[in-house]
């Protein structure tokens, strides 16, 4: 475990990436600082699908988009326009970047409702409008810090790039990958190649250890200097709690419903403790999706905590919304 004195320190790497030591917040008693913004601004354009293959319950798409592939850092995501030129679906679908290389990036899509189903149905040769890379990447730990990666469902895909990067920098990497059942496990091969120990769990025991990821995480967390997690909210909450309880900093990539993905609409917010110790509704698209695990007020997601900055001004808003108040 590597922890230092709590001063915020940025390490500049030759690749231009900024490394933020996951240290206790100055004065707030929190372990993590807010993740710094990405270095490269997002771009918008058409990407060409160059590969599509089923990956257990999901579809892995590979897309040619050099601008995005080169700028992307682990933890970031892209937003696809869905349904083609005559689509009734106006909003983009946010999908984590699973891997990059050779001017291409890959994503793992879970076909849920109409938009993600359309995405998963793309075929090589199809073009799709994409904006990215979006959001803040996972900050990298100081050299030598052993890392624990925890992925739930397709969330594991978002950790593949990070695992590779950490290993290439000489970090020890452990990983726990879980899902409801074997079919919903994701990126097992990719992560097992970079992580040891590597543990798989399924809720129903259809593969790996029966039960949730939290079992193995509780065992492995004290050997880690930093925890990275991506997956469903309850999993993130539990993993962050385990890490914080052991004094280990954690970074979680959250998934909130997004309308714009670029920071202009304020639909994707969740209560987060800021650098000044005050809680705010932070945008998961541009202030996240990566947050310090102990800054996210998981228990309050979906509510309006009264101590939030500006919550006192919302009295009128507690009645059903009038049409203009709603915005």
């Amino acid at each position, binding site marked *: 475990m590597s922890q230092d004195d709590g001063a915020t320190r940025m390490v500049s790497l030759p690749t231009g990436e900024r490394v933020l030591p996951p240290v206790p917040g100055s004065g707030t008693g929190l372990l993590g600082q807010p993740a710094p913004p990405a270095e490269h601004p997002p771009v918008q354009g058409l990407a060409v699908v160059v590969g599509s293959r089923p990956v257990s319950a999901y579809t892995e798409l590979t897309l040619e988009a050099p601008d995005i592939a080169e700028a992307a850092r682990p933890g970031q995501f892209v937003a696809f326009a869905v349904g083609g030129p005559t689509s009734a679906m*106006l909003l983009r679908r946010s999908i984590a970047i699973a891997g990059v290389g050779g001017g291409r990036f890959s994503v793992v899509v879970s076909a849920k409702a109409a938009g993600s189903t359309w995405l998963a149905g793309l075929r090589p040769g199809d073009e799709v409008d994409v904006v990215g890379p979006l959001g803040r990447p996972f900050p990298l730990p100081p050299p030598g810090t052993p890392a624990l990666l925890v992925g739930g469902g397709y969330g594991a895909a978002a950790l593949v790039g990070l695992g590779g990067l950490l290993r290439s920098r000489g970090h020890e990497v452990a990983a726990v990958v879980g899902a409801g059942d074997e079919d919903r496990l994701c990126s097992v091969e990719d992560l097992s190649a970079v992580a040891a120990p590597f543990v798989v769990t399924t809720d129903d025991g259809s593969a790996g250890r029966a039960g949730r990821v939290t079992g193995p995480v509780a065992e492995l967390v004290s050997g880690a200097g930093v925890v990275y997690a991506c997956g469903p909210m309850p999993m993130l909450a539990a993993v962050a709690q385990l890490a914080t309880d052991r004094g280990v900093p954690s970074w979680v990539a959250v998934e909130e419903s997004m309308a714009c993905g670029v920071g202009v*609409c304020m*639909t994707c917010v969740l209560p987060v403790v800021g650098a000044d110790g005050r809680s705010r509704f932070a945008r998961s698209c541009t202030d996240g999706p990566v947050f310090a695990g102990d800054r996210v007020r998981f228990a309050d997601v979906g509510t309006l905590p009264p101590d939030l900055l500006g919550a006192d*001004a919302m009295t*009128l808003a507690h009645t059903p919304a*009038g*049409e203009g108040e709603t915005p």
Partner: protein
Amino acid sequence: MTMLPEVELPSVDMQASLGGVPMVSPVLTASGCASFGRELDPFFDLTSIGAVVTKSVQLRPRSGRATPRMAETPSGMINSIGLQGPGIDGLLADELPWLAERGVRSLVSIAGARTEDFAELAERLRGAPGVLGIEVNISCPNVESRGEVFACNPDASAAVVAAVRAAADPAHPVYAKLTPDVTDIVSVARACADAGANGLSMINTLLGLVIDPDTMRPVLGGVTGGLSGPAIRPVALRCVWQVHAALPNVPILGMGGIRTGLDALQFILAGAGAVSVGTAVFNDPSAPARIHAELADALGERGFGRLADAVGYAHRAPDEGSPGRHR
């Protein structure tokens, strides 16, 4: 999408006006759909559009509502953000200077729960750098009238407009933003114009509701929300048409579902002197700049030398012809 002409078109004079204040383009963003502009900077040159219309700002910072704050709907979405924002202090300290430094013009949208709130906000904006004018979001519940929305009542609307006009910088045109959810929009428009509004912005969102088939309750934390996007375009055009027919000399900032240059053209022909692009930005973050270009082409194709000549053109008498090649 754009109807690209085969031959080089004579360039169209796209100068527009906001209640007498000249703008380089008739295309603006829409309040609440561009935050305070910054996030769109990577996607297009913010100085190339008429103005950034800011998220409606109130006297105090506001947290906004609990999530979920949005639901996608056929060719649209409903939202219930709850006017999350930094308040007038944050606007003046952080947002307006950022815009002004870069030469980006803004139309500041203000909102309040009392007539005096609006007046105070207008007063605070006197002399603010880069501010082109004020958009008064009267689609807010009036705390002094048991939460009835100002814009649903001609008298309440007129009172706010008169107070803002009196308090505002004389150089700032004041636009009143109307809701379509009224029996007679012309009477509200007339009341605002008589009270001194320099122009009218229309339309705000329509009050809507979506029920989640899984939870079997309303999706939005705020129960009802505002419907926007191409779905509402015919309603918006009807409002612009009716008000321009009744009050041909009152400038209109048209909005509601504009996604292409031809959509914008419909608003111009119906009587809008300029247009705001809202929800379409979530689909295409560079939409305002694209729409400016498409509109210029569409006007040129139709033989218009100046945007100004097309404003209200669809109201011409049945026997009047068309300009240019349509003559």
